[in-house]
């Protein structure tokens, strides 16, 4: 590869194939190689002035080698011919330190992807976003936020990031493939002064693989200002048990935690409360969750998985019943089944179970209907790490609004919500139709019948 940062899929694939042959030549029984090459630009403006312009290309190679059922995982960014040969040999050498693991093996040849679906993940026009264009965009977005409401007294700035990347993957199980993708995101973060020296911050963002899918900079700025100003005067509420309505942003983080407890890796490690629950009810009948890597233009789509398997949509939860755990080849073998083609792969680590586009299917209710409770908490942000996947104990800080008779009454902060995660998912009694598709974990607004709110 001549130069880094050009997101050239073919040269990534060529390099992966070359390293694969070096690894096999060095004596590996089996090997997989991932090569990533990409470039990023990030521009941030604050109070109308440039604060940061960051631009770089990067590339790296990750290798997994197997020898006598022993596994080593290595990575490098040195593509010098001699260094690559030495790297292959050193990686093989490292296998000796591992111990034989009968479950460690590459996928079966017949399961490998043969055809690659066209997923429309690349937008050439992303590359046309240069520093000048990004400065214009960010200035416009931030200015719109500050102009929208005089209570916006300060700013954490507006940032635009664009990234392009290519992946090439080659496996001795009979696979060689590559793809490339683009991504752009834009965020505005206003700040307001509140009583007692407190500030209130908020944000709004737009993101997608195509420049044309982004909201206008001004629209993002105005919405960010609206959301931030709405937090002024936030206060605690008395400790109570009430329904909780989760915005798509807050619900997304619950859904991401759910992805962790249906991961095959957590199941064979017995580190999820759902380990024995496949086939049983794990959520309200309103809940259907799918993991779909094949959605055109979606942020989490991929034409093959991290081990080269042909991908497919997996229905994880259907009307509240847990249909399947998501597995890579290793987890599947440990659990005596076949992979759901859910392996992810990074340059710096071996395959592991990941979600692609992990989606809580939207319901038929309007957001107003979901929010229509006599009193309750509308949660817009979650804070902290209070989730134990082994027991399902869940307790996190929240920011949001108090609901009275279906309407936002006043902003709330410095309270926690707690519940057992199982009760929380079983307790969902309304799901709205407003699916948020900006990120790879996608959620609509939903309501949980009862949580404990700890405050005053």
């Amino acid at each position: 590869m001549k130069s880094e940062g050009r997101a050239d899929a073919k040269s990534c694939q060529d390099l992966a194939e070359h390293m694969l042959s070096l690894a096999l030549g060095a004596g590996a029984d089996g090997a997989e190689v991932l090569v990533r090459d990409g470039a990023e630009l990030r521009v941030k403006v604050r109070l109308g002035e440039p604060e940061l312009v960051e631009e770089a290309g990067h590339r790296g190679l990750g290798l997994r080698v197997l020898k006598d059922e022993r596994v080593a995982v290595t990575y490098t960014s040195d593509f010098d011919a001699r260094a690559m040969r030495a790297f292959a040999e050193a990686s093989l050498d490292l296998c000796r330190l591992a111990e034989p693991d009968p479950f460690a093996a590459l996928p079966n040849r017949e399961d490998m992807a043969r055809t690659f679906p066209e997923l429309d993940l690349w937008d050439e026009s992303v590359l046309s976003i240069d520093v000048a264009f990004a400065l214009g965009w960010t200035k416009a977005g931030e200015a719109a936020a500050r102009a929208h409401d005089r209570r916006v007294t300060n700013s954490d700035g507006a940032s635009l990031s664009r990234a392009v990347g290519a992946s090439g993957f080659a496996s001795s199980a009979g696979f060689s493939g590559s793809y490339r993708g683009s991504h752009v995101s834009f965020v505005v973060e206003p700040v307001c002064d509140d009583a007692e020296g407190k500030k209130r911050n908020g944000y709004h963002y737009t993101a997608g693989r195509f420049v044309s899918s982004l909201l206008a900079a001004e629209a993002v700025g105005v919405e960010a200002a609206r959301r931030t100003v709405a937090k002024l005067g936030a206060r605690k509420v008395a400790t109570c048990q009430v329904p909780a309505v989760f915005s798509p942003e807050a619900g997304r983080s619950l859904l991401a935690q759910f992805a962790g407890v249906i991961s095959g890796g957590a199941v064979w490690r017995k580190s999820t409360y759902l380990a024995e629950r496949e086939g049983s009810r794990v959520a309200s009948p309103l809940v259907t969750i799918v993991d779909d890597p094949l959605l055109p233009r979606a942020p989490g789509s991929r034409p093959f998985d991290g081990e080269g398997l042909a991908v497919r949509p997996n229905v994880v939860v259907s009307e509240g019943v847990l249909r399947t755990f998501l597995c890579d080849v290793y987890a599947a073998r440990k659990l005596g089944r076949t992979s759901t083609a859910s392996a992810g792969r990074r340059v710096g680590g071996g395959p592991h179970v990941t979600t692609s586009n992990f989606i809580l299917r939207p319901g038929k209710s309007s957001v107003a209907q979901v929010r229509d409770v006599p009193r309750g908490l509308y949660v817009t942000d979650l804070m902290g790490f209070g989730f134990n996947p082994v027991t399902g104990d869940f307790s996190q800080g929240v920011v949001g609004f108090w609901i009275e008779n279906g309407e936002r009454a006043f902003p709330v902060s410095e309270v926690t919500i707690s519940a057992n995660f199982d009760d929380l998912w079983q307790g969902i009694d309304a799901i709205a139709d407003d699916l948020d598709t900006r990120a790879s974990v996608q959620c609509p607004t939903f309501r949980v019948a009862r949580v404990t709110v700890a405050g005053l």
Partner: protein
Amino acid sequence: MQTDSISEFSPTPLDAIDARVAERLLSAALASGGGHADLFFEYHSGCDVAFEEGRVRTVGRGIVLGLGVRVLAGDATGYAYTEELSEARMLEAAHTAGQIASSGGAWAPVAIAARTLPSFYPVPELSLSRPGEDKVALLRRADAAARAYDPHVVRVEAGFVEGVAEVLVVSSDGVMARDRQPMVRLAVSAVAEAGGKRQSGRSGTAKRRGLDLFAEAGATPEHHGREAARMAIAMFDAVDAPAGPMEVVLAPGESGILLHEAVGHGLEADFNRKQTSNYSGQMGQKVASELCTVVDDATLMHARGSINVDDEGCVAGRNLLIDKGVLVGYIQDRISARHFGVRPTGNGRRESFRHHPLPRMTNTLLCAGQDAPEDIIASVSRGVYAKRFAGGQVNISNGDFVFALTESYLIEDGKLGAPLRGVNLIGNGPEVLRRVTMVGHDFDLSDGTWTCGKSGQSVPVGIGTPTVKIAQITVGGTRTP
């Protein structure tokens, strides 16, 4: 260029970088003007071993090499990096970073002199130079200790991670600093099963040491194996945590996470320069109980958060942040120090050459007080004793913070009672620190594996505190009064 602290280091690709190369790159970076530029070269070599189900499951190894170039033009930062240290690629990165500047004359080269650094983490022998079998042996011992602790322990995972970063910073004001930053980390997690229920526990340590660390009492693999198992078993008796405001006693050591969240982040000078922190404009004012003296100390021998030099080439130190309740200092990097007209405090840190520096904590500590820890617990009629933590988060703008307890106990009538299920505490930084009513004489530095995240960058940090009583903080349990 070599300093005493790295004299035993083996040759690396950074050896090819001398003052002449640096001068050419800095000239290129500042060709369009700009007030300051720096070069950050990094060579990181790391290895990891994962042990589970009684065997070494995988072994990993990786090397990362690169250069980050930063140009400052006023308060604006231009940044670029390259993973290829050919002169052409390095010059390209320098030009890219320099685009931020559009005014001012070109740089007049200054004499570049190597800065002599302190040595807070001399390591007699790097763990990377020890045979892999030594590391596997540590993991085997941890695994055996966890399983031997109790027959209900059904799963043990033990991991060893080691790395050495060699960094070389050269700045346009003529400073050149080279440091070698080692780290070893051992972590054990255990799952126990009884009566159809499962519980988990974890324990670990990370320090700037060699393998000799694991021979010390309190750092042995057996200690961490047993501790992970003990936590898992102890949690079988856990009861639902209460919900609402209560008295809380923080155990010494890792409760320092409260300091890190409640004041540490809010005192980072970038937020205060931009007036986006709830501590902005409060210099010289009382922001905590007079029992509270808080320092950020990069000079603790071998501690996870210690650094000889920051990633901008400034020598790190021990910095007083809060003196008997009064705010006296911010955590500064170069940009903020210039804004406030103070000396940089040596807190300009970054995750790697791919990242620009930010004001970051090193080891953040609450200093010891006068009270006996047993008196502190005895003074509580009904409250929570917080012992182990999963992590925390703070909202800089308003000071609200949470931290997750993984092991805590009810206190009733001055005595420790039943263990509580996992729960969060939530409070507001200045409010909680004003409610500190007792501080123990039993200061302890946590030896845990703490990593701090900010703006997408992770850096290793240390935390420490004595036993502390907070008169009132909200406990986020499920049991309403």
